[in-house]
């Protein structure tokens, strides 16, 4: 068994809607380990994205505890949470979310720049080489195809060697071939960089690369399957 990078214990999340409280996650417990891919599967609205936001320290649970690399997010200040994300968490989004004003290389470099790291360009170039887009370093995001943009997003998410990589429908906007490329990169990221990968997906192909599949329904975990 690998080192747990992310632990969710009895996590619930509710939102106030007028006078009513709507619970979108109900007592979810989960663990993502280093070097493994965990896939969250389930219909739209089952709570996958909410769970990813809690797991990525972007939001706080109403009840329960989220621990990243052993640290409870509830006990951290805003600044400490930012530092935690900056150093230990990477994100990949369905819509790529590259910054349109920066070049490809600068997009990849950005997490390092925000952290005030040294040798940012060299590290970013190394990640770009890894995703096979070294020659696109000076391009602008709008000059990339969808698949290329998502590969850049994966490079960006891994540039600071995070312990935990959160991926929200990473193949949702891609054709099959591009989707496969991205999935193999994610798979390799887990093995090569030792990151714990938590991925929400509708796609069976995406779920197939995961060691752990978490089936969700109506904000609850229905089943956890390991292979």
């Amino acid at each position, binding site marked *: 068994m690998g080192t747990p990078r992310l632990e969710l214990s009895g996590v619930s999340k509710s939102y106030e809607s007028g006078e009513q409280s709507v619970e979108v996650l109900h007592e979810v417990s989960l663990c993502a380990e280093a070097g493994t891919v965990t896939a969250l599967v389930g219909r739209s609205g089952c709570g996958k*994205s909410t769970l990813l*936001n809690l797991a*990525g320290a*972007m*939001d706080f649970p109403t009840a329960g505890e989220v621990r990243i690399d052993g640290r409870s997010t509830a006990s951290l200040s*805003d*600044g400490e949470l*930012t*530092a935690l*994300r*900056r*150093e230990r*968490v990477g*994100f990949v*989004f369905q*819509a790529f*979310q590259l*910054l*349109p*004003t*920066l070049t490809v290389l*600068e997009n990849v470099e*950005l*997490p390092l*720049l*925000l*952290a*005030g790291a040294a040798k940012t360009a060299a590290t970013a170039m190394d990640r770009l080489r890894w995703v096979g887009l070294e020659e696109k370093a000076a391009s*602008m*995001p*709008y000059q990339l195809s969808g698949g290329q943009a998502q590969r850049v997003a994966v490079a*960006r998410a891994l540039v*600071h060697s995070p312990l935990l990589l959160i991926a929200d429908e990473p193949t949702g906007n891609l054709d099959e071939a591009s989707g496969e490329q991205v999935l193999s990169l994610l798979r390799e990221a887990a093995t090569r960089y030792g990151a714990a990968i938590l991925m929400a997906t509708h796609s069976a192909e995406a779920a197939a690369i995961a060691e752990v599949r978490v089936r969700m329904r109506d904000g609850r975990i229905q089943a956890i399957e390991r292979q």
Partner: protein
Amino acid sequence: MKLLRTLILRPLRRDLLRTALTILAVALGVAVVVAIDLAGDAATGSFRSSMQTLTGKTDLEVIATGGIDERKLAALVALPFDVHFAPLMEAQAIVAGIGAVPLYGADLAGAPEGLAVSKGLAGRLGGGKSVTLEIAGRTHALAVGQTLDSGGEFLVLDLAEAQRVMGRYGKLDRIDITVGAKEDFARVEAAIRGALPVSALLEKPGARSEENQRMLRAFRWNLRVLSYISLVVGAFLIYNTISVSVVRRRAEIGILRAMGAARSTVMGLFLAEALLFGVVGAALGVALGRILAGGAVRLIADTVNALYTTSRPAALELTAGEVCAGIVMGAMVALGSALGPAREAMDVAPVEAMSRGAREHRARLSWRRGLVWAAVLAGLALGASQAEATGGYPVGGYVAALLAIGAAALAAPALVLGVNRITKPLVRRQVYGLLAGRSLTASLGRTSVIVAALATAIAMMASVGIMVASFRETVALWLDTQLRADLYVKPAGQSAAGEYPALAGEVQGLLRATYGAAAVDFFHGVPLHFRGERATLGAGDMEVVRRYGRLLFLAGQDRDAILRSLPGRDRALVSEPFANKHHLRAGDRVTIPMGEQVVTLTIAGVYYEYSSSQGYLIVDRSTLLKYLPGQAATNAAIYLAKGADREAVLRDVQLRTAAYGVTVSPNQVLRKSAIEIFDRTFAITWALEAVAIVVAMLGAANSLLALVLDRRRELGILRYLGASAAQVRGMILTEAAFLGLLAILLGLALGFALSLLLVFVVNKQSFGWTIQFHAPWGLLGAALCAVWFVTVVAGLYPARVAARLEPVDVVHEE
């Protein structure tokens, strides 16, 4: 209408703060124009004397250089016509606790003895039985005889008493003439002209008022042009706001077009948005302008009093016509500024689905074209600046200024890209710098507009600053050459430009006997009406001026020879503004009325002079007294002998002239007071500059806020990638600082070009002065630092909004 409500009005309501900022910018722009117009009218439109209001209808009036001999009145009255002649004298009296009030001498036969006080003034005097007033340095306590049922504030004395109080015997300032209804007007006029000396001016009433208005036209015109600066800056902001509106609603426009909306409908929608900003902003602006006018009227009146003539501000009148004109002006400016972006909206193809990146890329490619057009406009500006004045107005200069502003605006994208490229290696080390620089160049179109708006305001500030500093420096240097005497003596009390209270006759004798004086020069100032313009006929002892003074003549003119040629001959000097205004050169001949004669004088030389844009015509004292015998001196300059103790002489002169109401000032005091007057006259200019800067700052805040709201998803992503709230805030503030820096660079370049136009074209053509160029680098540097600081402050609120965005919400909202 429904489209307007859903596509335009609803988003405006959602973006209430930005809507308010845009409306406020328009409101301030319109307010300044309205305020200056209203205040200008009030401060300069009240030349029709209160006495004219009192005496009622007048058909003709007689004036003469140096006054009209009162014995001429008898000849006029003897004319066999049904004509009424009203002799008048006029002076400014200082009433304790109230200030300068017009004092008239008139024929009050049959009226109660004593001072007649207008009803308006009587109220302020509190019903006292006597009034203490100071005139030409002397204090008089006069009993109040009656209250006149007339508006305005003035005092009237019977002629004989007025002559005594004013110290001017035997001379009248004006004769008002009313011709009987049954008389043949032309015949009467001819007969009156025949009875008067050839030197007297017989004019229709209103001629003097027109003369005053003419005298002030350049001043008012330039002030009015300055007041349009804020509106120009506001126009940039409306352009920016509508551009943002079009960019944001591109997808909606595409859908509308796909659903069958005509191009004209789309264009109309955005023009309607601009019209809304224009009309609401202008309506607020008119109201605000009325309030601001209250403050501006005092500043303008001060300038008019110091530089031109006595002006008592009239009541501010905001007519329905002016309200409509203000609103129409706001609406037109808004529509004109929105035309470009609205046309862009019209051209959005129904199927257009371009990403912002690609669109901005296209914008980046067009910077070269902008630069070429900027060069074309700059060339045209250079051409326009060479044009002669049109009807006395520096039209070419102002057209050149507008073209230069256009050139700067078109060069803005190239500057943004250029500076970004140069600073790239520098800012790349700091993540704020990288993101801010990229963000600004990515939104090139928008960044350029806000840089151009800010730069225009900064350029105006810098150029007017340079112009005023150059003028001030020139005046200071000129004062050094002009004020060579050690002591100056003049009647005590205030007197406006164009007024020459006389020194008491006894003073002349006393001053001549001053122990320690090497020479005393008596100056005589007499109001002169020349070719429909006002000027001053002056006279002094040219031999004293030659020996002790340092009068500076235009290049190539021999000072010594010129001054030697004046005594005893009909020769004159003219000041530079007088020469420019009337197109005169050394050697030309001018004809002026003096006393009872019309005298032809040869211009011996043109000298530099900066105290009056109306100008001086100077003759030797002997020449003046030949034609105007007994004309009193109005001030005196005392040159001390070598080794004389100035303090001792000053005290001695003060002691000996104490009974005659004069002020004795050392050279330095006079110089200081001249500079103080100069500074006061430019106060209104600075106020206008400040408003333009405020409008530009509103624009900067507005623009940054738009950038923040447009990029909220990107800002959310940054937070996901590990940016702290402080880093996001820092990034927006860095953008503000970048904007300020770019605007300062462009503003300085433009400001320098505009200052050359102001100094060498506009000033020369408007006022006739040659000004030495002098840039106040220290002051400019401090002002620009302040502007930069305020630009960063303008980014505080947008930065706060950016830092408080909820990343989860904004990233998932699209």
